[in-house]
C-alpha cells in the first residue's frame, strides 16, 4: 500500500537519523575537537573533490526535468556553488577554507592528493544521478535535510576547538546553514508530491540510503588515510621462494603473495606513519612514476580487507 505523505517524510528523515555521516567516527572526532591539523587538512583537500561534483550532479538533474518551474528553482544550486562570476560561490569559499587550514589553493583546486576511495565515492554519486530518473535523483539530494544541523555544529566546533583556523575560512559552512534548508524544503516537497506509488516511494528511500552510504564511504577513505598501518600481529611475513624479491604474508586463513612493490609498501608500514605519509614517502621515492599515492592507498585498502595489515588509530609510542 502507498504510504501517506507524512509516512514517507518520516521514513526519509529516519534514513538521516540512522545513516547520515554526522554519525561517522571521523565526523564525531571533528566535532569533539580531537582531529589533528593534518587530519583536518586531509578532509578539506578531499572534500573539495566532492564539492566540485555537486554542480555537475545538479546540472545532470536539471537536464532531466521537462518543467521550466523546476529548472528555474534547481539552477540556483549551480549558481550557489559556481557563483555568477569567478571568485564567487561555494567552490571559491571552500578554497578559502583550504587556505585557512594551511593548504595551497592551487593544489586543492588542481585536485592533487585526492584519495582513490574519495574519488570513487564522489564519482559513484554522479553516476547514480546520471543513471536514475529525476525522482530518485532528487531524493538522493535530500541529505540536505540533515545538512543545516551539521553545519551549525561544525561552525561551533571549529570556533571552539580549531582556533588556528581563521574564522573567515568558515564562510562556506555559514552559507550552507541557510541554503541547505531552502533547497531541502523544495526537494522534499517535490519527492512527496511525485512519489505516488509505493514502488516510487521505496525507490526514493533507497536513493537516500545510497547517498548516505556514499558520504559515509568518503569519510571511511579519509579516516583510513590518517590511520597508521602495520603488519597484522596474526600475520607472519616471509620470503617467497618462487618469486624472488616478493613476500609471502601468512595469515590464519590465507596466504597473500606480495610483489616487490607491495613489499616495499609493507616495509614502510610501521604503525607510526600514517597511510598518507607512507604514500607521500613512496611518491617522493618514485617521482618518475604516475599514480604512486593512489596505488599505495588501494593496496593498503586491499591488504586491510584481507587481514594482512591492521590500521592503528594511535602511534605505537
Amino acid at each position, binding site marked *: 500500500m502507498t504510504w501517506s505523505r507524512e509516512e514517507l517524510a518520516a521514513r526519509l528523515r529516519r534514513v538521516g537519523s540512522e545513516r547520515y555521516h554526522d554519525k561517522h567516527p571521523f565526523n564525531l572526532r571533528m566535532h569533539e575537537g580531537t582531529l589533528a591539523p593534518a587530519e583536518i587538512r586531509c578532509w578539506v583537500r578531499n572534500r573539495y573533490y566532492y564539492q566540485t561534483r555537486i554542480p555537475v550532479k545538479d546540472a545532470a538533474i536539471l537536464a532531466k526535468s521537462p518543467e521550466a518551474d523546476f529548472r528555474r528553482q534547481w539552477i540556483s544550486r549551480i549558481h550557489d556553488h559556481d557563483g555568477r562570476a569567478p571568485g564567487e560561490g561555494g567552490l571559491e569559499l571552500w578554497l578559502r577554507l583550504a587556505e585557512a587550514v594551511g593548504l595551497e589553493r592551487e593544489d586543492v583546486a588542481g585536485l592533487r592528493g585526492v584519495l582513490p576511495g574519495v574519488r570513487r565515492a564522489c564519482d559513484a554519486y554522479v553516476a547514480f544521478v546520471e543513471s536514475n530518473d529525476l525522482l530518485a535523483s532528487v531524493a538522493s539530494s535530500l541529505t540536505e535535510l540533515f545538512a543545516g544541523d551539521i553545519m551549525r555544529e561544525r561552525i561551533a566546533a571549529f570556533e571552539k576547538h580549531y582556533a588556528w583556523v581563521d574564522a573567515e575560512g568558515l564562510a562556506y559552512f555559514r552559507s550552507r546553514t541557510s541554503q541547505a534548508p531552502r533547497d531541502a524544503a523544495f526537494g522534499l516537497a517535490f519527492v512527496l508530491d511525485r512519489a505516488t506509488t509505493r514502488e516510487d516511494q521505496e525507490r526514493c528511500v533507497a536513493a537516500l540510503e545510497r547517498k548516505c552510504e556514499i558520504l559515509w564511504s568518503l569519510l571511511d577513505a579519509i579516516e583510513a588515510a590518517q590511520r597508521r598501518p602495520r603488519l597484522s*600481529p*596474526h600475520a*607472519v611475513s*616471509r620470503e617467497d*621462494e*618462487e618469486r624472488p624479491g616478493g613476500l*609471502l604474508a*601468512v*595469515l*590464519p*586463513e*590465507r*596466504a*597473500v*603473495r*606480495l*610483489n*616487490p*612493490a*607491495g613489499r*616495499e*609498501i609493507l616495509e614502510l608500514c610501521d604503525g607510526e606513519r600514517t597511510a598518507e605519509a607512507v604514500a607521500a614517502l*613512496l611518491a617522493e*621515492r*618514485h617521482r618518475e*612514476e604516475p599514480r*604512486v599515492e593512489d*596505488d*599505495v592507498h588501494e*593496496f593498503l585498502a*586491499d*591488504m586491510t580487507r*584481507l*587481514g594482512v595489515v591492521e590500521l592503528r588509530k594511535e602511534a605505537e609510542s
Partner: protein
Amino acid sequence: MSRPASGARSEAKPSEGHQVGSEAESAEPNEDHQLVAAPRPWNLIAELTYRCPLRCPYCSNPLDHAEIRDGLDTAAWGRVFREAAALGVVHVGLTGGEPSARRDLEAIVRAAAEAGLYPHLVTAGVPLDPSGLAKLAGAGLRSVQLSVQDATAERSDAIAGTACFERKLAIARAARALGLALTLNVVLHRRNLARVAALIELARSLDADRLELANAQYDGWALRNREALLPWREQLDAAEAVVRAEQAHPARPEILWVLPDYFAARPKPCMGGWGRRLLVVAPDGLVLPCHAARGLPGLAFWSAAERELGACWEEAPGMNAFRGEAWMRDPCRTCPERTRDFGGCRCQAFRLTGEAANTDPACALAPRHAVVETARRGAAERPLVYRGGALEADGESAPTVRVP
C-alpha cells in the same frame, strides 16, 4: 615502482573434519588451473588422532575411525612437517579427532613452528584447558579454530553428546588473552539453523576474528544421519538472510557462510581440487587428498610412516587418480566451470552414485542429481546416531556423558 598487485590465496581446509570451500576472493594465478603432475601443496591437514571426547552426529571422521590408530609419534610428525615445508606447504592445521587428546601436542606444535609452518589448531576445546593452550602458544601456535555446536550450553552439549560448552568458552577467552587469532566454527544443520543470529552474537561477545557457519557436509556420520540433519529450505533461507544482513556491516567478526551443497546448484570446489593444494596426513600416516578419501575403493595411497612425504604426494597412484582433468566424464569434461569446481567431491560422487569419477551429484548438471533432490525431500524427524553408534534417546534431549 610497478603496481603492487597481490595474489591472495586461501586454502580449503577441513574444520573438525568438515571442509570449507576456498573463498571466492582467492584470486588464483591462471597457471594453477593447468594440469600439473604434482602441484605445490600449500596446506597440510595433520590429523593427529581420531580420538575425541565429543560424539557429534555429523562427524566427518571415517565411520571406522576407532580402528585407525595413532601411527606417527612426535618425531615422525616433526619429519612430516619438515618434508611438508620443503614441498612448499605454508599452513598446518592440527586437527583430528581432537588434537588435544594427544599428550605430545605441545611438542608437535613446536616441531611445526620450527619447520617454518604456520600452526593452526582445530579443536573442540576439550580436553584442552587454558593453561594447556598457553603452553601451545609458547610453543609457537598462531591461531585457533574452536568448534561450538550451538549457541547455548544445553543445546551445544546435546549435539556434542557431552558437557563441554563452558570449557569451550574458556578456551575462546584464553585464545584472545594470549593474542592468538580466533575462529569460531559451527556446523549447521536442521537443529541449530534457527540460532544463527545468536551464534553471531556469541562470536561477537567472544571477540572472534572470524565465524565459520558451515552447513554440514553429508559424508561420514553426517551421511548416516542425513534425514535427521538436512535442513528445510525455508530454514536455510531465513538463516542466510540473517547472515547476509550481518555481512553487510564491516564489523567483526568476519563471517563465512558455507551453503550445504545439497541446496546449491553447483558442487563445492572440494579441497580446492584433488591433490592440488592441500594434503591430509591421517593419524596412521596415510597421505590423502582429503580426510575421507580412504573410503574410496581401489585407490592406493601411501603412508608417511613408511615413505618420504614428497613421494606420497607426488607419486602415490591414489593421489594421481583424480588430478587434473583427464579422469573427468561428461558433463564435467567439457564444462566451462571445471576449472573452478573441479567436478566437486569424489567421495560424495562415490557415496551417492557408486562411482567416484562421476560428476558430484550435488551439481544440477549431474546425470544423477536426482539422488540429491530425493534426499532433500526425504528430510525427516529421526533420532540422531551419535559418533560411536549410540542412538539419541528421543527428540532433542540427548544422553549426556561425562568427559573422560
